């Protein structure tokens, strides 16, 4: 086993421990919230007797440690339990939701990375130009606009007034445009700013001057030499932003009625659907851990000087 494999194994163990920690924290947090899931499910009109029966059905009458034990034992077998709200297995409920969230988050991530890197690079090659200032202003707006407000504004313009795009839902290609733009706005701004500063630093370095001196075209200098060297901080931000996108999906999905995990999480918290909340948070955490790992591994691909161990 070489050092790389050792590194991977180490990261894997750390990831599992992280997720275990997350599972315990979430397990306790949802139960610390006031409110009885059985009563929420049954509604105001139900009698106490019916509520008690639901409580027993859900296993909520058992001690906490027993509930956590059952949760872990099931988890080990890949079973996240049954949703209290819908009586369906959490895994079955999550699968299509995860797909929808990933579709949205990945589209936004690609959009954010492409637009952000492009804009940042253009600004860095024309520092203190009108374009640069315009970009600074736009990114400032992008960072400060609340997702919720931006989403509604886009809906009013593109769905209500222009009637170009659907206001909500996930059917058809067109429906992803507005939620993906909304979700990407914050990240585009951040990635553009990071790209600009990272590029500015690299463009001042000697090897860039050498490249130019040996007669390479400006485009080649920027794309092949500068950008590649400026990429480490950029990829870090892109990776971190993917986590932010998953978080941002909660709001974006609510505004656009996008049938993802974010929307489900909100519903599940408000109905105290313990199993579902645990499942969603675990999946979100696992994704985040995974993306971080991928980013770390990307460093070596971009910069051969980086070794793991």
């Amino acid at each position, binding site marked *: 086993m070489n050092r790389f494999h050792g590194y991977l194994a180490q990261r894997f163990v750390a990831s599992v421990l992280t997720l275990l920690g997350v599972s315990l924290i979430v397990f306790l947090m949802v139960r610390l919230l006031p409110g*009885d899931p059985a009563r929420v499910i049954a509604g105001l009109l139900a009698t106490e007797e019916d509520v008690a029966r639901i409580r027993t059905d859900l296993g909520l009458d058992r001690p906490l440690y027993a509930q956590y034990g059952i949760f872990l034992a099931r988890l080990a077998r890949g079973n996240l339990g049954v949703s209290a709200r819908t009586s369906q297995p959490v895994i079955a409920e999550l699968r299509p939701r995860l797909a929808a969230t990933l579709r949205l988050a990945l589209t936004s991530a690609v959009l954010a990375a492409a637009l952000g890197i492009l804009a940042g690079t253009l600004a860095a090659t024309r520092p203190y130009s009108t374009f640069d200032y315009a970009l600074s202003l736009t990114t400032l707006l992008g960072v400060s606009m609340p997702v919720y407000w931006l989403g509604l504004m886009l809906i009013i313009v593109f769905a209500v007034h222009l009637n170009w795009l659907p206001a909500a*839902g996930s059917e058809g290609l067109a429906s992803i445009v507005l939620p993906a733009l909304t979700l990407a706005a914050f990240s585009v701004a951040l990635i553009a700013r990071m790209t600009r500063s990272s590029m500015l630093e690299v463009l001042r370095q000697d090897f860039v001057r050498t490249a130019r001196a040996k007669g390479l075209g400006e485009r080649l200098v920027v794309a092949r030499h500068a950008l590649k060297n400026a990429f480490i901080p950029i990829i870090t931000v892109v990776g971190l932003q993917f986590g932010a996108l998953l978080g941002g999906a909660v709001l974006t999905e609510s505004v*656009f009625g996008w049938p993802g995990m974010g929307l489900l999480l909100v519903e599940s918290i408000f109905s105290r659907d313990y199993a579902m909340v645990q499942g969603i948070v675990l999946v979100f955490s696992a994704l985040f851990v995974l993306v971080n790992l991928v980013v770390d591994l990307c460093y070596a691909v971009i910069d051969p000087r980086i070794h793991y161990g």
Partner: protein
Amino acid sequence: MLDSRSSRARAWRLSRVALAVLVAVALAGPASAATFRVAIGIDPDTLDPVQNTTTTVANVLDYMVETLTFLDPKGEVRPMLAESWTMSADGTQYTLKLRKGVTFHDGTPFDAKAVKWNLDRLKDPNVRVPVRAPFPLKEIEVVDPATVKITLTRPSAPFVMALTSTTAAIVSPAAADQYGNEYKNMQHPIGTGPYVFKERKKGESVTVGLYDKYWGKKPVYDTVVFRVVPEAATRESLILAGQVDLMVLPPIADLPALGRNPAVKVLLAPSNRTIFISLNTTKPPLGDVRVRQALNYAVDKQAIIQNVLFGAADPMDAPMAPSLFGYCKAGTYEFNPAQAKQLLLEAGVKPGTKIPFIHPTGRYVQDKEASQAVAGYLREIGIEPELATMDWPSYISIVNAGPAEKTTHHLAYLGWAPNFLDASMQTLQFWSGYHPPAGLATSFYKDARVDELVVAADRESNPEKRKAMYCDLSKKVWSDAPWLFLYVQRFPIVYSAKVTDVASIPNEKFYAVYARPAQ
């Protein structure tokens, strides 16, 4: 330079092509004219009639499943799968004559056996039935294929009314272990209704299609799609963009603007939901009837309805909505701060007395805003309300706490909508047998005469006598004021001016099965 300009031109052309493609895709998006699209606010937690607890879910289910009796838009009980019924003299036995020639969507016949199977399931303790109380079922007997005899555990006059509830809808017994269904949990409803379940996309939509062997009048639209859009402003955008034909619960502050918009119609449907502030009579000074009356006089309900609810409510004049059987006008508490102050003085309540006041946020139309307005009025008469809010599950764990000595709430903003239009379930709110934790009579009001009437009226088989009993009860409760009576909420429905024949049922349901394009 030239090179860069041509590449910019190319990029511009490309972006225009991309935009054109997007527009084309978007335009292709909306479904054909034969589809009726509805935007609802919540994703159904279940499609199993017996498990449903929300009117939105019931509203969707009503397209596919039918009940033995039916509540019409006027709020009256009509025959549906049962053509007629008789009640025994003691009110414990009902004999139902069933409609003949009706088939379920799976082709199996609807008959007495199917009814027995469904009602047996409704009373089966192994099946999760959150609202079982209105159905005191003891035994269901098949007399012949078109007749069932139902015996109850206690006399219940409103039982036929209770059968209008979607909870008691009839599904195909043969489908209980097919289409992914289980006896304990049915998610593919096979009923006898005008529409057949087609597809469910969780978190997104439920689609139903016309049932060509439907026994009754056929609807116009081939397909109905219920789209799940939790955000009210987005639902409003959908209807304004013409991307849905009907929506429920728009942002309430937009009601005036929607009313002026010729592209849509607004239906402020009467409902059965009373909105009130429960006064915990076990907490001083709320034990004193003069204090409770003072609170009722202190608040200008009409002003709150106009300025906070934008007209989407009517002031209460009885402890129940006018749409319920048993309603009679019980009185009014005219806005009169001087009288309120006088009553407080008589009761010895000092100015500046602090009273905790909790309210939910976002559960009922404008609940937070209305609570703040009420608090303002109470300050005017020298009461210092201590406002607090929390999310719904936390909220009900507080108002549902019991017995009385364990409660912490004093004033609590609440809504109550009985799931069938009869005073029996509403008046439980004033019955001492329903004090928390047994029930949700959150004001812990106790009056011997009222207690007696609640039980007697539920059993009384003579409708006129029943009405008189509920009227007596209402007047007593009204003057004892265990609630700060606010208003009966209206249920706002917005639909496209391009469709017509949209109605509502006075229990927060839209009735658009027979909607059709406007000429």
